[in-house]
């Protein structure tokens, strides 16, 4: 009897010891995950994968499944690492993401990772944790914050997409003022609210003789569209394109080209005199409830696999040039990108600020 008891006691003790060491390991690796500035800080990729699997979940926000192939990226991540993803508010704006980080801070529902427009990224760097993905050096210096608070992910050029079975071919912006476009032309959102729409008006402005410093020509153009009855004040979505409410849409070329899946006669046009580029950025929430999974997600997005998935969604991944050099790029997907001839323009932070201030006071009047 007493011997049995002794053995049991011993085994309990041993169990407790094992538990203790296990606990010790978990705490040490997750604390370092929350502060890790690279995969090496956690002890390499394998350690990061283990830590992330232990957390068992990843919260993402504002990632529409039909936007830049995010549907496939989310299921690809879960398939590869067995970590389920909770995708909140898929149609939210970048500001919605930041609001969620602030309002859900400290809860397990807070977003772990963010995919945001540059204006919002620059305004909220205090919410982000610095992190450098393994492929950090492939990202151009102009496309990342030096400590890794944010780093650009994918982008494209502003374009005019149209259903060639409903409207005449578009070869210049002025075509849109014609009678064949009555009640046809839409933006992807309100330019005082949505980044894609702001860039749509800016591209118009550049094509109409304005400059990145002057968006007024674009606002004037949309005023003309409105007077002709050609402008539709509806947010263009996959649904409105499919049902024909918005047969002409100003949008990023990668989003626009994706409409071709629903509407075979969908064409994408980028005016040669106004090639306006735009990139979104990734950031890790400083208070991420799943810090290791958040960092693993970044590693996945910036791996060749993740970058090629974006490319399949017709977005231009930030490592594309480096991958073309190394031959890792999915050349079939790259060949499907809409052709662009000319030198692209990128808005600086000052130019974006100037543009939004002008829009705030003039947009409602121009199209109201």
């Amino acid at each position, binding site marked *: 009897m007493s011997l049995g008891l002794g053995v049991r006691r011993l085994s309990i003790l041993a169990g407790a010891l094992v538990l203790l060491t296990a606990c010790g390991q978990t705490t040490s690796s997750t604390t370092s995950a929350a502060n890790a500035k690279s995969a090496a800080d956690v002890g390499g990729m394998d350690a990061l994968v283990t830590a992330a699997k232990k957390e068992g979940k990843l919260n993402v926000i504002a990632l529409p499944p039909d936007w830049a192939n995010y549907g496939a990226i989310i299921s690809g991540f879960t398939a590869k690492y067995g970590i389920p993803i909770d995708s909140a508010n898929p149609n939210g704006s970048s500001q919605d993401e930041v609001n969620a980080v602030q309002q859900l801070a400290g809860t397990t529902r807070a977003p772990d990772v963010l995919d945001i427009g540059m*204006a919002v990224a620059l305004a909220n760097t205090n919410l982000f944790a610095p992190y450098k993905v393994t492929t950090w050096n492939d990202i151009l210096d102009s496309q990342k914050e030096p400590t890794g608070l944010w780093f650009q992910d994918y982008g494209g050029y502003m374009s005019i997409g149209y259903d060639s079975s409903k409207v005449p071919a578009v070869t210049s912006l002025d075509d849109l003022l014609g009678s064949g476009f009555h009640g046809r032309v839409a933006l992807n*959102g309100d330019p005082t609210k949505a980044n894609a729409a702001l860039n749509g008006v800016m591209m118009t402005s550049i094509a109409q003789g304005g400059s990145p410093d002057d968006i007024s020509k674009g606002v004037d153009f949309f005023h003309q569209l409105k007077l002709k009855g050609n402008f*539709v004040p509806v947010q263009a979505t996959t649904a409105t394109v499919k049902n024909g409410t918005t047969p002409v849409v100003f949008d990023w070329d990668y989003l626009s080209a994706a409409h071709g899946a629903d509407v075979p006669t969908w064409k994408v046009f980028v005016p040669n005199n106004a090639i306006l580029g735009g990139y979104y950025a990734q950031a890790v929430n400083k208070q991420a409830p799943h810090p290791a999974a958040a960092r693993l997600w970044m590693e996945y997005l910036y791996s060749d696999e993740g970058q090629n998935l974006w490319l399949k969604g017709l977005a231009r991944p930030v490592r594309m040039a480096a991958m073309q050099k190394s031959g890792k790029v999915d050349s079939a997907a790259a060949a499907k990108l809409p052709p662009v001839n000319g030198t692209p323009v990128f808005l600086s932070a000052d130019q974006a600020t100037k*543009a939004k201030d002008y829009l705030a006071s003039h947009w*409602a009047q121009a199209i109201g």
Partner: protein
Amino acid sequence: MTVATKPLVETARRPLGGGRRFSLNWLGAVPFLAYVGIFLLLPTAIVVGGAFVGPDGLTLSNLAAMNKPYIIGAFVNAVVLSAASAVIGAILGAALAYAVVTGNPKGVLRRLVVSACGVLAQFGGVTLAFAFIATIGLAGFITVWLQQHGINIYANSLWLYQLNGLVLVYTYFQIPLMVLVFLPALDGIRPQWREATESLGGATWHYWRYVAGPLLAPAFFGGMLLLFANAFSAYATAAALINQGSIIASLLIANTLTSEVGLHQPGLASALALVMVVIVAIVMVLYTVLQQRTARWLR
């Protein structure tokens, strides 16, 4: 226990307090007061406070921004839209309610109309906007069918996606709401009063001018003001229908809260909400004044 003993102490301390006993009646109002406090007063206080807060602390700049033309425009549009849909809704709703009341009070028609109104008065928001988009929207099936027969309802302007369109869509929930709030008042009118008017030699005109009209006026205008507030605060219907320009105040508030291009200004949103509160307060004061005047007839 403490609750029960306190009043005893109070009464003992003031035995000559006008001979009144301390009453526990107020306890019954506690849930109501708590409800009003949490869901009405607290949010109002947050809005009022927020209106004076900017990115760098306390400021008056949010209120100073209220004179910008695009903000004034949004308020003018909201008032015009609410007033137009309230007047149209009140007149048509009252007429419908009168038609229902003149029929059999227990008839099928009345029961049908009342329950339909109960449903339709709540049929606002995205569902209502979708119903209009799917039928007479740009690619709606009625629009397309008419186009195939040579009629383009959007030949001159895309009116459904403008203020005019919102007036039409809003009346869809305003009329049923008016029916619901106006029916009880009509039920209060007794047929004997009409008979009395006639026995005194009055015609239909005299009856409406001197008897029914003054009696129904407070309920009618009260209903109209309710419709005004209903339309003024509506958001989802307009948001689902019109995406551009934030043409009414409630849309403008949403935009200043969610803008991702750097126009995210929670303080400005609070200031806009404060102005909305003030406008509704003015409407309520007008309503009280109006009711005091018309209530004379009911004494």
